[in-house]
């Protein structure tokens, strides 16, 4: 099977000019060089806490941010220009905030038509037909087309967001926290819809979330990010059940689970390192209960730790 998406050494450094005349240029490495592949039809989950670089990664993948280094390949074709339109036909983005992602001054129809006109230069009749088809598949009624975004609830607006992403007929959709702004009872509706659409349109998903349980429920494989780096990759059912990296274990132990007694999981410190002044070695070392001298000096790289699981740790956990 070919990979839908291949990322190699992708990295982003934000330059921060400091000092009086912008001399002391410092860089915040929001995403450190990372590589991964997503086979066609897979859902790759990406989890991490605030500041781990997951949104920066997502915005690079759809061309809204230009990577500092590295390459993005979609179905074997390299995408190195930062032209969103070129990205747009292959890869689409679904936003976290369903309301903010729809222009309040446009009708749903105008919003839906934009990608069809700009990316595919479709005529009017063709566009109407296509919009009808898409609305049908996301269970939205056609009369919604004449309305404005503020008339919709979060769940409905998020369906419109899905419909817009689908209109571009992409191969891959990046779902950036697609359900975190929604109520629990509506979350499941949207998640199930996304799953149905995936098989219907033969899509590949990158599902970004901070909610471990949601990511586990929808993903085939999961990438765990910490401080801009991949710390662990593995099968969804394995990563949290048998974490190898101490950070993954901390995450899994922190998630509130019915029936588990309440104890703060083992960690020394809950602070992230200062992004302007990152420590040498493993970024997690200051919080890690297993950290040793070597962790504070050398940066660990991803290595296989059995099965399809990879972890960036010198002293990975055993089963």
């Amino acid at each position, binding site marked *: 099977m070919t990979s839908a998406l291949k990322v190699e050494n992708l990295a982003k450094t934000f330059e921060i000019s400091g000092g009086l005349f912008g001399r002391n240029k410092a860089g915040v490495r929001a995403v450190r060089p990372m590589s991964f592949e997503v086979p066609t039809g897979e859902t790759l989950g990406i989890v991490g*806490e*605030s500041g781990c670089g997951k949104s920066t990664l997502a*915005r690079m993948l*759809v061309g*809204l941010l230009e990577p500092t280094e590295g390459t993005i390949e979609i179905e074997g074709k390299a995408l190195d220009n930062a032209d*969103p339109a070129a990205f*747009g036909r292959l890869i689409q*983005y679904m*936003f976290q*905030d369903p309301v*903010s*992602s*729809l*222009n*309040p*001054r*446009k009708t749903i129809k105008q919003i839906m038509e*934009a*990608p069809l006109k*700009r990316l595919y230069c479709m005529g009017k009749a063709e566009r109407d037909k296509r919009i009808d088809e898409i609305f049908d598949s996301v269970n939205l009624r056609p009369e919604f087309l004449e309305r404005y975004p503020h008339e919709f*609830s979060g*769940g*409905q607006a998020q369906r419109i967001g899905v419909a*817009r992403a689908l209109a571009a007929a992409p191969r891959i959709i990046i779902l950036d926290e697609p359900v975190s702004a929604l*109520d*629990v*009872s*509506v*979350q*499941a*509706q949207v998640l*199930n819809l996304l*799953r149905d659409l995936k098989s219907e349109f033969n899509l590949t998903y990158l599902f970004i979330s901070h909610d*471990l*349980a*949601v990511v*586990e*429920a*929808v*993903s*085939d494989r999961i990438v765990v990010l910490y401080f801009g780096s991949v710390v662990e990759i593995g099968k969804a*059912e394995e990563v*949290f*059940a048998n974490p190898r990296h101490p950070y993954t274990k901390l*995450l899994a*132990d*922190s*998630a*509130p*689970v*019915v*029936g*588990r007694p*309440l*104890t*703060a*999981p083992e960690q020394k410190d*809950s*602070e*992230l390192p200062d992004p302007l002044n990152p420590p040498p070695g493993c970024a997690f070392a200051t919080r890690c209960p297993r950290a040793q001298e070597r962790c504070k000096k050398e940066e660990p790289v991803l290595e296989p730790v059995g099965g399809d699981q990879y972890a960036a740790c010198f002293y990975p956990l055993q089963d």
Partner: protein
Amino acid sequence: MTFLKLLFRNRLAAMGAVVLGLILLLVLAIPVLPLQDPDVTNTGNRFVPPFSEGHLLGTDHLGRDLLSRLLYGTRLSLGVGIFAALIAATIGSAVGIIAGYFGGRTDNIIMRGIDMLMAFPYILLALAIVAALGPGLLNALIAVAAVNIPFFARNIRGITVGLAGREFIDAARLAGMGHTRIILTELLPNVLSTIVIAMSTTVGWMILETAGLSFLGLGSQPPQADLGSMLGEARSALITDPHTSIVPGVMIFLIVMSINLLGDGVRDALDPRLRSGALSRPRAQTIVDRKSPVPADDGNGLLNIQNLETQFHVGKRIYRAVNDVSLFVNPGECLGVIGESGSGKSVTALSVMGLVASPPGVVTGGAVRYEGEDLLSANFESLRQKRGDKVAYIFQDPLSTLHPLYRVGDQLMEAIQVHHKVSDKDARAKAVELLKSVRIPNAESRIRNYPHEMSGGMRQRVGIAMALANDPDVIIADEPTTALDVTVQAQILALLDDLRRERGLAIIFITHDFGVVAQLCDRVAVLYGGKIVEEGTTTDILDHPAHPYTKRLMACVPELGGGKRELAAIPGLPPIVSDLPPGCAFAPRCEKATEACKEGAIPLEGSETRAVRCIHPEEEIA
């Protein structure tokens, strides 16, 4: 059209519109009015007082008819002011949108230039321009327009930066739109209302500024006169013949005031933030306006909420946020209140100590008893003494709930000192001790931090320390961990649990997360549409949910360790509390609903510790 309706509902704006309309009508009627030539002098007829034969407003120092000069002058002043406003708005907005949209270096260079222009007091720039171009009305117009461009550019840039960061702009880019198209079709419609607001609030100024330049003799040149030059020429005769000054002066005042009134009206009508009266100042205590008798004390719990009803009155609409909610909590007990957004869980919590923003919030029924005393009937001073001392709160977002300009130590000390006469030194020592008790490292130096210097988890610890400051009996925690990362959440929950056991605290814990409830709470109440639909011990509710909503809500939530799976979704949407159905609020989404569910109110049945509001419960409850 709603805009005009909103505009004219504002009486002041309507008044402004009427005055301005009359002035405009007079000015437009100039060609058909029997006016004398404004520039014909008649020195034999100087300074004729007003209401004289043939000269309704009298004549000026050259014997010219003042009424005629006033109307011609008004026309000129209005025309010049409005034209200057249009020029300034067009150029300024274009510059602002370009700077705000492209950002980065473009923005930097443009805004530096704008800042330079703003570094001048406006008149200096106008004077310099007039000095270079020479006195004259057209040059005054150019000067006034030029000095107002920075104002528009800055204003519009600010709005554009906010919009350009919004996700719909990214979406438009992904839909293949180019820069020009995004600016014209996505941004411009959204900033247009701001441009109109800025124009309507500044056009009065610009009329005043051009009049000012003419007053100085730098604008319109004789014999042509606008209102400013009329006033300027009349100044020398101010003491002997004041009417020649008063006539043009009052006209400028009327024009500027009516435009200002109308401009404020336009702003209020176009700015959605002001539309709902959102700028009302919340009172110190929620308004209590009970329609039903105060329920008798049933002696339950330390803090006892009885049949509480809280509503929001917005215009004619009534949002029934809390409907007949009864809850109690005992010392050392943790009561969980769980629900989705709009279920009324936060409003219930805030109603206890009268902290619901009011207006629009009103408590319309029930009682909140602390040790038997009804807090809703208490006067403000006695309620204030209990706030933070007996019943303390922990809020959701620790960044917005701590005062940004005070050190956290001072905020902690204040919490102690508003209730107890303690010296600063002792209060500071107590503050350090509190920070240590919530396990903040280096507490001695941390008390000197400002909130923005701390991480989210640390800030929430400060929030908890503040709640503990006076050893309260009850803590009400309103989603205290929702804004936090999961690893931090685990620590905060463990901390709360320890504190409760050490200090015998009663906690009411508001959340939407079953996992959190399961770990922390002894008893749980489930809220839906402002009503309790089910309550019971945590184990009962989790293992044997009786209400279909509880059962299905738990099924929706994926739990860690379950692997990839299909989720059981609840169809439909949560109810809107301004339009609740007569029967069970969940009936429209419930598979088991029958006609009876939709007909009348359904009582909460069961015992004090286990009850359900359903006529087709999932399980019979004991």
